[in-house]
Each structure stands twice: as structure tokens, then as C-alpha cells.
């Protein structure tokens, strides 16, 4: 057993965090819901993202990628969540992984890895998983993306962003066909599908972990400086009891992420998916609970547009819903564990 990040992974986390923070600092949620900056990165920001190798991170080397382990990708995504990065890096990673699992040609994947082709994954209308076709689908985390591929390889342009709870990430409807960008895809083997699914769920767990730990840290910082009744509110036991349970949730979620991310590459696909469902169920619950608590600990100020507290809660709720919330996964796990003869 060697549980935890190795020095390289720690370095990756640090570097990713620095860039994520910098990207986040250039994005402005404005003075109210009608004043939010676009989640699409500027060309300069996208160039920095590509330069950092993020779109290429997980693709295999023969597809122009860096062939990183799922743990490494999780380390990056935790930082994207931690800084509520608006640029659609997660959407890109998910779309790339899906296309690779569907056997997309190397040139398509190379273009993604090089940041030249900006794609978003298509999810079904309930955001429960990948869409079977473009019909009624939603292009997820798709700010600035130019195309989305349906599983039949058809390429689709993307419409305007829809209204969303999450102010940092866009959801758009696929629009017109772009037939000259169609690509050849094949249905994935069951094993590939399970591993893809496990990978995607793991990224959402990572984003939830980053989001909830940012929310908790900020709430603790606020509680340390804000005074009422002549002392910092963080010195009140009622506040401490909440924050402590939140740290328990954060640390347990981190353990779940570590296992789930390790399992993607180390365990048989069905076991990896089972672990990822478990982690996603846990993180969905705990992520939202911690972000709700952070709003509470921030007090009145946490309910203003100005405060970041609602941004975390919006992102956590969206992560929770995307690719299935705790109820969706617990339903599957119940069937797996409790069916007669299971």
C-alpha cells in the first residue's frame, strides 16, 4: 500500500494550481446574474492551457497525448475545482477520453491534444451520462468549444449557452451538422465503456473535492477573522462543530478520490466503475453538504452575489447532478449488491 501522492504528483498539483488560480483571477462573475463573464477562455488563456498540456494529459501517446494516469488527471481537476476555473478543461478531457474510447482517428485526437480542435462531450438531457445521439443532447462544459461529436461520429456545431446554475461552466445545445468534420467512431467494448465511465466519474469527484475544500478553507478563514459578540465567530463551538464535520467529509472524499482514481487504471473495469460510482455518490452528497455549510458559515455575506460562496455551491450542485447524483448511483449499486443471486 502506497496511498497518497508521489512527489511528481505533488509538483503537478502545485503547478496546475498556480495556473488555475491565474486563469480564475482573469474571470469575473460581475455584479449579478445578468453580468457574468463568459466561461469561454480568451485565446491567450486557451494557449496557456494547451501549453500546460491539459487537453493532451490523458490521451495516449500514439494519439498525441501524454498518457497520464487517472491519478494525475485527478490531481489537475482537483485544482480546477479548487479555483472554480471557468475554462472547459474538464469538458475537453471528458470528450477526448470518450472519443479515444470510441476509436476516433489519431488525427482527430491529436488536434484535440494540440488545442486546435475544441470539443465538448454530449450528455443526455438528464445529464445522467453520454448521449446516445445528438437529438435532445446537451454539450457539457462546452464554453468556447466549436464541435461536439455524437457516438455515430457526426459533428455538431454548438448553440448559445443555456441558463445554468453553475456560472463557471456552460451547457449548450448541439445545433447544425458540420458534416465535413465528421469522424469515424465505433461502439466501445463493454470494458472500455466501463473504464471510460469510471474515469469520467472520477473527474467529477475530483472537481467536487476541489470545490468543497475551497469552500471549507474560505469559510474557516472567514470565521477566523469575522467577529461577533467580541470574538471571532470561528471560536464559537456551534461553528466549530459544523466546520469539523465538513473536514471529515472533505478528507473522506479525498480518500474516495484516491481509490477511485487509482482503480481506473489498476483494477478490472467493472470494479473500477463500482469504485467510481461509490466515490461519486459519496462526493455528491458531501460536496453539496460542505458547500451549503460554507454558505451558512459565511453568514449574510455568503448569500450575496459578491461572495464566492454561492459560486462553489452552484458548481457543487452541477457536479453532483452531472453523470448522476448519489441517488442514481446508489440505485445501480443497490441492484448490483441486492438482486437475488447477486
Amino acid at each position: 500500500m502506497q496511498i497518497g501522492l508521489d512527489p511528481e504528483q505533488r509538483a503537478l498539483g502545485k503547478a496546475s494550481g498556480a495556473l488555475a488560480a491565474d486563469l480564475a483571477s482573469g474571470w469575473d462573475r460581475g455584479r449579478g446574474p445578468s453580468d457574468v463573464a463568459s466561461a469561454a477562455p480568451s485565446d491567450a488563456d486557451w494557449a496557456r492551457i494547451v501549453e500546460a498540456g491539459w487537453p493532451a494529459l490523458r490521451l495516449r501517446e500514439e494519439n498525441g497525448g501524454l498518457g497520464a494516469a487517472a491519478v494525475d488527471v485527478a490531481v489537475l481537476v482537483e485544482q480546477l475545482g479548487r479555483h472554480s476555473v471557468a475554462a472547459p478543461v474538464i469538458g475537453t478531457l471528458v470528450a477526448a477520453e470518450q472519443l479515444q474510447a470510441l476509436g476516433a482517428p489519431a488525427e482527430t485526437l491529436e488536434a484535440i491534444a494540440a488545442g486546435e480542435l475544441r470539443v465538448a462531450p454530449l450528455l443526455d438531457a438528464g445529464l445522467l451520462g453520454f448521449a446516445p445521439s445528438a437529438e435532445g443532447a446537451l454539450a457539457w462544459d462546452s464554453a468556447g468549444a466549436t464541435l461536439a461529436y455524437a457516438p455515430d461520429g457526426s459533428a455538431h456545431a454548438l448553440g448559445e449557452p443555456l441558463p445554468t446554475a453553475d456560472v463557471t461552466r456552460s451547457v449548450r445545445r448541439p445545433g447544425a451538422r458540420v458534416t465535413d468534420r465528421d469522424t469515424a467512431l465505433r461502439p466501445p467494448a463493454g470494458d472500455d465503456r466501463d473504464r471510460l465511465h469510471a474515469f469520467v466519474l472520477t473527474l467529477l469527484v475530483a472537481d467536487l473535492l476541489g470545490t468543497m475544500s475551497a469552500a471549507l478553507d474560505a469559510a474557516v478563514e472567514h470565521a477566523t477573522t469575522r467577529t461577533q459578540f467580541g470574538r471571532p465567530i470561528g471560536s464559537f463551538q456551534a461553528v466549530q462543530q459544523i466546520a469539523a464535520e465538513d473536514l471529515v467529509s472533505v478528507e473522506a472524499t479525498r480518500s474516495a478520490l484516491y481509490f477511485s482514481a487509482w482503480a481506473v487504471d489498476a483494477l478490472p473495469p467493472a470494479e473500477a466503475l463500482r469504485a467510481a460510482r461509490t466515490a461519486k455518490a459519496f462526493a455528491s452528497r458531501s460536496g453539496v453538504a460542505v458547500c451549503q455549510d460554507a454558505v451558512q458559515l459565511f453568514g449574510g455575506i455568503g448569500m450575496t452575489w459578491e461572495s464566492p460562496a454561492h459560486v462553489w455551491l452552484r458548481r457543487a450542485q452541477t457536479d453532483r447532478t452531472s453523470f448522476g447524483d448519489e441517488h442514481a448511483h446508489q440505485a445501480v449499486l443497490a441492484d448490483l449488491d441486492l438482486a437475488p443471486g447477486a
Partner: protein
Amino acid sequence: MDFSDSPDVAEFRAGLRAWLGEHLATYADGVGYDSAEGVAATHRWHRALAAAGYVTVSLDPEYGGRGLSDLYEAVVNEELAAAGAPPPPPIGHIAHAVADFASADLKARVLPGLLGCTESWCQGFSEPGAGSDLAALSTTATATDDGFVVNGQKIWTSWAMWADRCLLLCRTEPDQARHRGLSMLVVDMDTPGITRREITLANGSREFAEVFFDDVPVPAANLVGERGQGWRIAQHMLTYERGPADMGWTGRLGNVLAAAQEGVRSGRLPADDVLRRRLAAVAVDAQVLSWHVARSLVDRSSADPGSSGSIDKLLTTRVEQELYAVVGDLNGAAQVVGEQRPFNEYLWARAQSIYGGTQQIQRQIVAQRLLGLPRG
């Protein structure tokens, strides 16, 4: 034990229902605080309700009320909620403060506009440094020859952007500690030196504002009660702030619940057994809340601990937050993608454990004042 209406209440309720049936459609549209039009529509609605005799019915007739019990205020709130009408103007507690403490002159000057809803009021209590700890407020009203000069800042002041007057809790006795140094003033909001800054909430609501006072003169005649009596008046107001309005709020939660139930029945909101049972569980809570609010209202004058507003607020918050969590899950992806009203309502429910005294403070009040646990 009787949870049903007495004949008098039934008659009052029937009259209000008839009035709503006739007039609601004229006034209900566009009411809100998100635009100038919405605010104008809100004022029209309040004035119509006042003219029909349904505003502050519990106030003494000599001040323009109808001298009815709190129960009737509750019926107004309840029926408006049931009809899907906007709430009544939330001025009962201000009206009682003025009626019970102000001079005859001040009353004559301000009550007609307040009760007729021709003038709009706000209540300046919270400050950036005094939220849960209200007694720590630092806005000062320094005595002058003919009144006071106010300096300081208020925050979370509902409707301040459009208010004509403000009932202001401020410090007039700098040599007195904490709550003993406070007084209550009526401040005209067009007095020079007042600046208002809108606060946009996470859910997009623009109801709140910050109000800055920079050498704002207030005539001595605008003092409510006596100097140093501010805290007592504020406490007095609190007893009028909830009860009846809780009935309306509970009714509105009931509407949200009923809409969710209808959505499930009709198949518009697909729900598996687990979600159906979660909805049933919160329906149980909402039903018990409505019984509790009714009991609390009727028992208000008794020494029964059930009369406590803090208990009611904690229970309401518990139910409201659970309700919106379930409704959110019923909406599924539609909660996070698409029209944002459901998500904004969910956010607003989260605020209920903060505004009007955080959950933590409310629990402390219950523990110390009702259970008699020792102060830390």
C-alpha cells in the same frame, strides 16, 4: 381543542376570499422587487389591500386598524398564500412599534401613510459589524439642539431602495453599554446625507440594500418613545414579526409542495419510489409545521414554550430546506440547466438559516431562554 375556524373567523375569511376572487387578478401581475415596474406594481397591490381593510387588521381602530386578534392577521397571510397572491406588506411590526411607542404627533404624521401603504418603509437594524450581535451596532445619532445627527451604516435593509421612511435603531447614548444606549428614530429617506447601495443576492434578488448615513439630521419629534428605549422597542417588534406571517410562509411552502406533488402525479416530474417517499416525508414535515404554526399563533400569549418564535423559525427552516432539496432533485437536470427560478428558490431556502438570526443563534436562544441551560 379545536383547529377549525370560529364563526367570526370563518366570516372574515370568506369576505377576504371573495375580495381576492374579485380583485386579485387586477393587482397580482408583475409584483416584485427586481425592477421599477415590479416595485410600482407591489405598491399598487399593497394600497389596494390596505384600502380594502386587510392591512394591519390587528392594530387599534383609532390608528386605522380593525382591532382584531393576531389570528386575523394570520388568516390574511394564509388566504393570500392559498390564492397564490403576493404577500401583504410586512409592516405589522413597524406599525405596532409606532402605535405603541410614538408620540401622538408622530403617530398622526406617519401612521396614515404607513397603514395606507402610500408611503413605503424600511427597517434599519443590522450593520456590517452587528448582525447576530445586534446590540453591538455602532450607527450613532448625536443629540443636537433640535434633534439628532445620524452617522453610520446599515446593511440587509429590505426595500430600502424604494423606501420613503426608515425606522432606525441607532446609538444615542454613547456612555451607555450595548443595548442600553440605543434609540429608535423615524428617518425620512430623502433627507440629505443618505446614500443607498443595492445588494444583489446569490439568487439574483435585489430586495436588500446598504444604507449610509452621513451627518443626516433628524428632528427630535421623530424619536419613537424615549431615548435609550430602542432595544425595548426592537424586542417588542420581534413579537409581531413572525406568528401571522409564518402562516403565510407556511402556506407558500405548501404551494410549492402541492405543485411538486401535482408534477409527480401528472408525470411531469418523473420520480422513482425513493423520490416519492422523500416527497412524502417532507409533506409530513410541512403538515406538522402548519399545525405547529397554528398552535403557536393561538398559544402566543401563553407561557407555553411552544410560543417561541425561535422554535417556529428553526422548524420552518428545517422544513423549507428539506423541501427545496427534494424539489431540486425532482427537477433533476432542470435544476442546474434551464430556467433558474427553481435553483434561485433553493438558494433562498439556504438563506433562511441565516437571515433574521442564524440557526446557531436561534438554537442558543431556545437552549438558554426556553430550556434554561446556563450561559457559556
